[in-house]
C-alpha cells in the first residue's frame, strides 16, 4: 500500500441525542477508489459531508494528506466534491461555475483559463462553456459538476451519489467515464452510493455501512464472496443471498436444517464449531439444480417459478422450509412443481452465527 490519503480516527457525530456516526475509523490510501455503500440513513452521506467539512463532527479527527483538517474549512481541505443534484449555480454560465472556486482562491486569470480549458477537454464540455446550467441536459450538468471538482486540481474527490438522478443508460455511461477519469488522474476518490453495481464496478475497496458503523471494508470480491456478517451478505448481490436457518452439528462439520444435513467440507472459513443456531448463506449462482440426491451435498426442493432474465434465468424453489433462488442458464426451463435437488458449492458458502450475525 502507498501512503495514506485520508485518515478518519474515532469519528463520532451526534445530532442532539441521536448518534449518527459511532467512533468510526477509516484509512484511505493515496489513489484509492473507496465506495461508501449502504441503505439510506446508514450515515454514508453524513460521513462524506464530514470529510468535506460540511458538517462539524462531535468527536474524533480527520486527516487528509497528513494534515489534521478536523476543523478546517471545506475549501482548505484539498478536496473536490460532486453532488447528486449537480448543485450548479443557476445564474452563472458553465465557465462561471467552473471558475467560481478558483476565483474565490484568488487564482490568476490565466491559470483559471488554463484549468477550465483542461477540464473542458477531459470532460468534453468545451462547447457548453458559455451556456447556463438551465440549458443543459442531466448528463451534461453532471459532467460540469465533475468539472468543477476537476479544476480544483485536488488529490481527493468526493462523490455524493452523483449518478442517482440520471436514467439507467446515462448512468452506466458516466460510470465508465468516472472510472476512466480515475485511472487518468489517479487521485483518491470517495464515492457514496446505494447502488451496488456502481460500488462493485468502481471500487478498489467498498465500505458497507449501517447505523453509522462500517460493517465491512474490503475489496469488492471479498465483500461479495466473504461477507462479514448477515447484513453485508444480504445487502450485496442481486438477487440476494439465500439464507437457510439451522444449526451446525457434528462438531461443526455439518449444517442441519429440517432434517437435511449438509457437509461443511470445503468451507473456507475453517473450523465452524457446533452452534445451536446458525445461518447458511448461499448465493444463487453457487447452487446447482440436479436430478438426484447426493447425501450431505444436496437439499431437496420443489420448483415454484422461473424468471428468465436474458442471459440467464432465476429459478425460485421451496427447499427445506425456506424460499431459495438459483441462477441457471436461460435455456434450462423447469416446470412448476417439479421435484429437484440443489447441490451446494460449499467452498463459496458462508456460515453465520445466528446470534451475533457474524461470519464464522
Amino acid at each position, binding site marked *: 500500500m502507498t501512503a495514506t490519503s485520508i485518515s478518519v480516527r474515532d469519528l463520532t457525530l451526534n*445530532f*442532539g441525542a*441521536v448518534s*449518527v456516526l459511532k467512533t468510526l475509523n477509516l484509512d484511505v490510501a493515496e489513489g484509492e477508489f473507496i465506495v461508501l455503500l449502504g441503505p439510506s440513513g446508514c450515515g454514508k452521506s*453524513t460521513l462524506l459531508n464530514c470529510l468535506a467539512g460540511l*458538517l*462539524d463532527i462531535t468527536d474524533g*479527527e480527520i486527516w487528509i494528506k497528513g494534515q*489534521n483538517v*478536523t*476543523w478546517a474549512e471545506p475549501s482548505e481541505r484539498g478536496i473536490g466534491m460532486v453532488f447528486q443534484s449537480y448543485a450548479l449555480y443557476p445564474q452563472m454560465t458553465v465557465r462561471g461555475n467552473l471558475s467560481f472556486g478558483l476565483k474565490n482562491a484568488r487564482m490568476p486569470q490565466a491559470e483559471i483559463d488554463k484549468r477550465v480549458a483542461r477540464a473542458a477537454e477531459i470532460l468534453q464540455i468545451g462547447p457548453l462553456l458559455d451556456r447556463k446550467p438551465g440549458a443543459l441536459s442531466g448528463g451534461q450538468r453532471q459532467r460540469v459538476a465533475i468539472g468543477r471538482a476537476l479544476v480544483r486540481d485536488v488529490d481527493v474527490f468526493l462523490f455524493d451519489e452523483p449518478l442517482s438522478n440520471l436514467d439507467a443508460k446515462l448512468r452506466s455511461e458516466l460510470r465508465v467515464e468516472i472510472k476512466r477519469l480515475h485511472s487518468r488522474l489517479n487521485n483518491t476518490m470517495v464515492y457514496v452510493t446505494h447502488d451496488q453495481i456502481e460500488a462493485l464496478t468502481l471500487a478498489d475497496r467498498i465500505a458497507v455501512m449501517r447505523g453509522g458503523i462500517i460493517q465491512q471494508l474490503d475489496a469488492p470480491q471479498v465483500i461479495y464472496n466473504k461477507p462479514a456478517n448477515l447484513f453485508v451478505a444480504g445487502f450485496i448481490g442481486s438477487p440476494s443471498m439465500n439464507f437457510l436457518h439451522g444449526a451446525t452439528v457434528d462438531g461443526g462439520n455439518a449444517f442441519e436444517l429440517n432434517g437435511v444435513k449438509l457437509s461443511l467440507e470445503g468451507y473456507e472459513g475453517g473450523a465452524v464449531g457446533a452452534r445451536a443456531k446458525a445461518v447458511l448463506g448461499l448465493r444463487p449462482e453457487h447452487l446447482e439444480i440436479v436430478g438426484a440426491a447426493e447425501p450431505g451435498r444436496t437439499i431437496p426442493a420443489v420448483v415454484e417459478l422461473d424468471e428468465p432474465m436474458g442471459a440467464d434465468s432465476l429459478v425460485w424453489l421451496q427447499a427445506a422450509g425456506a424460499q431459495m433462488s438459483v441462477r441457471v442458464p436461460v435455456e434450462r426451463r423447469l416446470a412448476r412443481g417439479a421435484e429437484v435437488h440443489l447441490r451446494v458449492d460449499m467452498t463459496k458458502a458462508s456460515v453465520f452465527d445466528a446470534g451475533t450475525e457474524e461470519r464464522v
Partner: protein
Amino acid sequence: MAGTLRRIRPFRNIYAKIAAIPMVLTTMVVFVGGTLWTVTYSFTNSKLLPKLNFVGLDQYERLWSNSLWLTSIQNLMIFGVLSLVLTMGLGFLLAVLMDQKIRYEDTFRTVMLYPFALSFIVTGLVWQWILNPDLGIQHVVRGLGFPAFEFDPLSNPDTVLYGLLIAGLWQGTGFVMCIMLAGLRGIDEDIWKAARVDGIPTWKTYAVIIVPMMRPVFITTLVLVASGIIKLYDLVVAQTSGGPGNASQVPAMYVYRYMFTAQNLGQGFAASTMMLLSVLIVLIPWAYLEFGGKKRG
C-alpha cells in the same frame, strides 16, 4: 492536542456568528428582555412612570375582576375565531376559484389584493362610512324604495363585531388568497391526474388530498393571520373606538388605555403579560411540532 483544536472552535464560521448578532440581540434584548421587563413591572403599582414598587398579584386580581377586560377578551375570541376561520376559508375558496384557469386572473388578483396595501386606519375609516346608516348602504337602499331596510351594524352592541369583521376580511383575505393560490400552484399536477383517474370528485380531492398536502401553507397563513388578530388595535380604533359602549373593546386597546389614559402602567403591563402568555400557549406546541419532531442532517 484535541484540546487546542477544540479551543479554536468558537471562531469557526465567525462571519455567520457576526451576522446573527442583530437577530440574537433583537430576540434577547427586545423580545425576551422587553417581555421580562413588562412581566416584572406587572407586579408593581407603577402609574405614569415605571417604578419597582411591588404589590404582588394585585394588578392581576384587579384585571380579572374588571368586566371591561373580560369583555375585551370575549370580543377578541369571537372576532378572532370568526376572522381566522373566515379569512382562511374564504381565502382558500377564492384561491380555488382563481385556480380554475380563468381569464383576467391578474385583474381579479389585483382587485382582491389591493386593500392589503392600505392601512387599517384607512380601512376602518372607509368602512365606518359605508356602514354609517345615514350615508352608506342603509341610506342608499332606502333611497331605492325600501324604507324599512336596516343595516347598521356599528351602532348595535350585538352586531358591531360583525361590522369590524366586514372591514377586516376586506383587508386581509386577498393576501391569504395569494398565499393559498401559491400553495395550490405548488401541488404536483400528477396528483390531479391520479385523483381524476380514481374518479374522486373535485371537491373531495380538495378536501381530502389537496388541503392536507398544503399543511405548511396553512401553518404559515395561520401564523400571519393569528399574529394580526392578537395585535388588533388600529382597525377598532379607527372604525368604532371600541364602541358602542364597550362592545368592541379588544385587549390591545385595554393595554393602551391603562398605560396611557388611566396612567396605570402596572395594570397595563398585567394585561400585556396575559396577552403574551396566551401567545406562548399557542406558540409552544407549534415550536415543538416544528423543531421537536424533526431530525436534522
